[in-house]
């Protein structure tokens, strides 16, 4: 058995990469991918603890998250395609019309 800290550290690293990527990248596709990284970091934590406590609940939730994420990606990509058609750009910095 490997120590618990390994998968958790991996999840932390993955999540941090996702956060930084989400914050600094302009390309909407990359932003999406960063988002997925954060999701999967969370999934990894679930799985780890499910295994650790010998409890199936964590695995069930991971299945749910993956399903939701798939749906969300479909919607998100559709939105990005639609934005690209109207604005000829997928840079998130160009999407700044909603402001006070």
């Amino acid at each position, binding site marked *: 058995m490997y120590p618990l800290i390994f998968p958790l550290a991996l999840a932390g690293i993955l999540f941090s990469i996702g956060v930084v990527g*989400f*914050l*600094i990248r302009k390309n909407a596709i990359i*932003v999406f991918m960063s988002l997925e990284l954060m999701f999967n970091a969370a999934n990894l934590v679930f799985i780890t603890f499910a295994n650790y406590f010998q409890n199936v609940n964590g695995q069930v939730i991971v299945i749910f998250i993956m399903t939701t994420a798939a749906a969300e990606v479909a919607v998100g990509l559709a939105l990005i395609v639609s934005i690209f058609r109207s604005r000829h750009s997928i840079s*998130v*910095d160009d*999407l700044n019309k*909603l402001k*006070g």
Partner: protein
Amino acid sequence: MESGQYLNLVPWVVFMPVTGLVINLLFGKRFGETFSGVVGSLASGLSFIVSVLVAIGLAAHPEAAIVTLGEWITIGALQVHWAFRVDTLSVVMMLVVSGVGTLIHIYSIGYMHSDVRHNGDPERFTRFFVYLNLFIASMMTLVSADNFVMMFVGWEGVGLCSYLLIGFWFEKGKNGTGNAEAAKKAFITNRIGDFGLLIAMFMIFKYFGSFQFDTVFGQAAQVAQAHPGAMLAITLFMLLGVTGKSAQIPLFVWLPDAMAGPTPVSALIHAATMVTAGVYLVARSSAFYSLVPTAQTVVMWIGGLTAFFAATIAIGQYDIKKVLAYSTISQLGFMVAAVGMGATVAGMFHLVTHAFFKGLLFLAAGSVIQGVERGLHHAHGAGDLDPQDMRNMGGLRKVMPVTFWVYLIGGLALSGIVPLAGFFSKDEILAAAYHGQPALFILLVISAFMTAFYMGRQLVMVFFGKPRSAAAEGASESPKVMTIPLIILAGLSIIGGALNLPGVHTLEHWLSHTLGEGEPAKFIWLVAGLSLVLALAGLGLGWLVYSGKLNKAEDPDPMKSKLGPVFTGMEHKWWVDEFYQALILNPYKAFSEFMANPVDLGVIDRIGGGLAAGARSASEGLSKIQNGFVRSYALWMLIGLVAIMTYLILK
């Protein structure tokens, strides 16, 4: 129907004029002048017939009856009913209001016919009768109320009608706003009085727990014993209301200006009925006043001083209606003095006879004014001559014989010549004063003398001598619709004294059912003789001073050289208006100015504006955060999340 059941008809004294005014409002314009006039007069006349029926019913059952139509206000202990009170006092007022009112309605058909044409707006004829009916309805509500709140409704209603009718030609008058200003002045001055009445009513509710007359007056003795200060305050605040409505010192200034209204209005509202509401109020509340001698003394002296003061001003006036206005104030002073002395019956008696002869005098003055207006029209191009200025009149006796005779009767009745109405009623007041108040007696006797003098002066200036203008020369008699009511009123002025003849005391017995048995006023030969001699002397002096002295309109008043500065004071109404202007209005305006500019604009607006500007700049600063960049929102989310997590972990 048995006569006792007539009492249940009493709500119709109010509903008849209301019906009339509704009909006139809906159809008056469509069917023309005659229709409006007849409907208005009929409404008032039916109200009079109902009053007569109620009086007949009451004669059989002289104790008071209360006719309740419904509940009006019920809040906790406060219960106010829409109720009519039929007792001998209220019926006397009903008869006077609807009786004299009906005659004035009929007269108005003729008067307003030419008045609306003279002022160039015949469309307004119907409106006049609507207002008059509204006035009769309000006045009937006032006198027939069974509690202070209903009475107050009528009290305010007549005030409103007074305002509407003084300002009937609101676009006319001095600088095009004169009439509107006069109406405003009457309304605002009355508000001051009404404030007093309201305070009195609130205190009555506090100490008596009711507004109903029987309940309140029944407890008067206990409350007077337990809270003498409260009773004094109630009576004095009520007196403030009386001075407003009945034009007594210090609030009399509105009544002379109220002459801006058409003359029938002056006769109906500002001589015969509304202004006597104050006298009625004191008579109605005599149960209070008899328990508070201090208040009685104050009421008595206010009345006496007003009677004297207004009589002096009446001597120096040139406007035919202004003389009568000050005369009305003076006569109201007599009545207030009488009710203040506790001689309530004498006051009510004078109220009734005064309604006859002063209504007559005003209507006759209206006839004179229109006669002169016709003369003016006839002599076209006589310049802008004032048809109300007595200096422009003279010699009207020959061209307006009917008006002259009725005016003479009214004038003699007012002066107190035996056996006309004014003699008996004024004598009763003087006799009451002679009994207990020698100082007041002297004041009233002098006022009575001056009354005769200014009536003599007016009669000479208007009707005798030679015409002093082309308008007076060409004047002509008024139509029958005007002169017949005048003749009826003249008849009433002659026989009105029979209501309460010495030794018979019809009115005294009639009112004793409501006011309680009092000692009937004694007829004192000395007082009667003195007042008659003084009345004759006053009239004679007026004749001597004025007859043949005025030949041209520009001639100075002969009294001017005799009295000098005193007459100048009379001419200028003793500068009371100017005095109020300087003492109250100017400081008030300065205070308003101060409150408006430095206080409101400088302080209050700055606080409000500062708050608004602060909120605006704060939200402008906060809105910077919403920059539209998704990444920055995500950063804020991250920071927030980290902050919350840190807090949860370190807690």
